[in-house]
Structures are given as C-alpha cells and as structure tokens.
C-alpha cells in the first residue's frame, strides 16, 4: 500500500531511481518505509515533502541529493557475526580448505559484497587475526564493498554505537579489538588496516580485487534484486571468484532456480562453489586436490 501523503507517481519515481542506481527493487512491505527513511534527507536539504524531493531530483542535478536519497532507501541492516554458526563453520572448514588449495601462492582474498557498515568484514578480520600464526607469511586481502557511500564511509571509520557493538560481538572480542571513545566504540588501527572498503555497484562495477576471490560473502543482498538482476549478480560474483572458491549466501538464500553459475558445495554444508569446477571435477572422475 502506498503512503497517503505523497502522490503515487512520486513513489514510482523513487523506486525507479533506486532500481536504476542499485538494481534493487522495493518489495511492497518496504514501500511504506520510504517516507520515513527519506525524512532526514529532506530535512537536510530543506525539502518539504516527497513530491518536492522528486521535483528536486529531476530538476536540481544535485549528485549529493541523489546519493543521499538512494542511500536512505537501502536497507543497511547488519551486525557482527550474523548467524554466528556460519562463521564457526567457515573458521573450522572453509578456511582450512582454502589454506590447502592456496598453499603454494600463500594468498587469500576475501570479498564482502554488500558489506553495508562493515560489521561482517570486521568479523572476518578478527577471526583471521586471532588465527595468528596460521596465516603468517600469507597475504590476506579482505575487501568490503557496498553501493552506499554513507555505509562505506562509516565502515572505513570503524566507529560503532553501543547498540551496534553489542549486537553479535562477543565481549572478549569487543575489549580486545575496540577502543572506547566519547562517540562510540572504535575499531583498533590494527583491525582497520586489515580491510579495504570501497563504494561499488556490484552489477556494473568491477570489484576492487587484486586477485580472484577465494571466499565471497554476499548475504542478504540478492533478495532485493529481481530474478534477472539476481542472475546478473551471480554472473558477476562468478567472474570475480577463483576457480576453487566458496560463496556464502544469507540464511534463506539459495542458488536453486536462480543461477547455474554456482552449485551447493558437496564438501562444505551451506556454502556454494563455482559450477564449472564441479562439472570439471565430476567429469574427470578425480577429486580436485583440497
């Protein structure tokens, strides 16, 4: 149901802006939130209502207003160690497999696609750092990207509110990896330097990776795409993935009926692998060294 205080055409324009800039669509149950989400943007830019905002977007040619509007419509929900079992499993299995696969190159690339304000990338960075000696002599690149300028700005700073810091983050890790400041909890420099955050539209921009990704997190992002966009997104993820790599999706997300680029990993429960690697492995009748 559309909100009552703005014209339907205003909503249609805003949804069109979101889709053209990010590929994301707004499900009916998120449309009602538009006005609430955009209120701070309208206040900041001195705009009275949604109709006026649409007018300004069309006529003012303001990049800042456009960025702010798109950012406000995105769902930036995230927290540390979201579905913590996923991280436990990755630490116990996927990272071990990848260590074996990449033993010669001694290089590991982890890409957090749709990283929002960064908690997921910080979670992995803490996990890797705590494995210490295991990764000594390795180059471990952790890259976080998101289409939201505002979210990436926050991720780079690494400052989290009391509410954010206590969502999912074990207290031992909090006191080890974060400093308390007057404005919140700041990730220590040693943690921040382990992650590169960049603004990226995953449907149109190349991911800023120096090497193909061995482990890709793309959780709770694809659900905002239409099926054709989702298929495109899977193709982009596949293009960025190393031949022997793993993809992590959100709980409730799957590749089944969505793409033939990835298949469920026969080795690791809950993870996905590039489909062509699977075909090669089964075709040859020999398992790939892992």
């Amino acid at each position, binding site marked *: 149901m559309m909100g009552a205080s703005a014209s339907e055409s205003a909503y249609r324009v805003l949804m069109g802006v979101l889709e053209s800039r990010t590929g994301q669509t707004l499900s009916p149950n998120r449309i009602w939130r538009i006005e609430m989400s955009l209120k701070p943007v309208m206040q900041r830019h001195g705009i009275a209502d949604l109709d006026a905002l649409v007018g300004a977007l069309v006529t003012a040619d303001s990049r800042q207003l456009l960025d702010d509007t798109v950012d406000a419509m995105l769902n930036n929900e995230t*927290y540390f160690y979201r579905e*913590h079992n996923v991280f436990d499993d990755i630490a116990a299995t996927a990272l071990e497999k990848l260590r074996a696969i990449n033993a010669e190159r001694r290089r590991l690339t982890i890409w957090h696609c749709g990283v929002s304000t960064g908690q997921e990338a910080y979670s992995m960075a803490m996990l890797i750092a705590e494995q210490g000696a295991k990764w000594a002599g390795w180059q471990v690149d952790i890259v976080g990207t998101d289409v939201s300028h505002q979210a990436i700005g926050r991720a780079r700073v690494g400052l989290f509110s*009391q*509410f954010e810091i*206590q*969502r*999912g983050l*074990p*207290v*031992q890790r*909090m*006191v080890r990896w974060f*400093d*308390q400041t007057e404005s919140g909890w700041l990730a220590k420099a040693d943690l921040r330097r382990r992650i590169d955050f960049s603004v990226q539209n995953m449907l149109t921009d190349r991911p800023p990776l120096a090497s193909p990704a061995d482990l890709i997190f793309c959780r709770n992002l694809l659900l905002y795409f239409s099926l054709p966009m989702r298929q495109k997104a899977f193709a982009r993820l596949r293009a960025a993935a190393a031949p022997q790599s793993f993809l992590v999706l959100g709980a409730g997300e799957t590749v089944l009926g969505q793409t033939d680029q990835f298949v469920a990993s026969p080795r690791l429960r809950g993870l996905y692998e590039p489909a062509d690697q699977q075909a090669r492995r089964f075709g040859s009748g020999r398992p790939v060294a892992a």
Partner: protein
Amino acid sequence: MSKSCLVVDDSKVIRKVARHILESMSFAVEEAADGQEALTYCRANRPDVILLDWNMPVMSGMEFLGAFNDLDYGHEERPRVVFCTTENSIDHIRAAIEAGADEYVMKPFDRETLEGKLQLVGVA
C-alpha cells in the same frame, strides 16, 4: 526441556521486563533481588544462565561472582553469567569479565539484544 534463567536485579521493573522476554523465549525464570538471594538459590539449584545486575544492595554482582566461582557443580557445567549494567566503561566491563562473567548486556535491553547475548553464551 526448557532452559532456566535466574534473573538477579534489585529493580522489580527490570526483573519483570526480563521475565517477560525470557518466558517468551521459553525459559523457566526464577528471580532474586540481590547477590545474597542469588547465592542461596545457586547453592541448591543450577540454572543454565544467570542474568546478573552489577549494582545491588546487600551483595553486589561482583561480590556474588566471587562467592559463585567457588561453588562446586561437580561434573555439571557451570552456569553461564551475563551481567547487566547501565555503566558501559571498558574498565568496568573488563573487571566483570575478569571476575568470571561470560557476557554483558547494557540496560535497558530489548528481546533481540538479550537473545543475541544468550546465543553467544550457548543457551539460546
């Protein structure tokens, strides 16, 4: 079998809110108004988790932990302790962890936050 939680807080309101949240998560809930009452309860019972206020009359959360750490649970696992506080200084949090708390949660808390903390200590 449902898990059990001992809520230790001198505020009736906080105990009521905690009980409401915990019961909605199918916990069996017991209450104590200070550390001494909690200690008496823990000498005879083994809750799965203790939600422990820090500043209380009679016996504080810190004093409770000192005595609680000496209790012998035999082969059974020691109850987990989540301390609840309005004081979020890192020194305060460190002191609680060193005294034996497993997690902490800031007051006031909502269901999602508390559930997250109980998951972290493995009881939810």
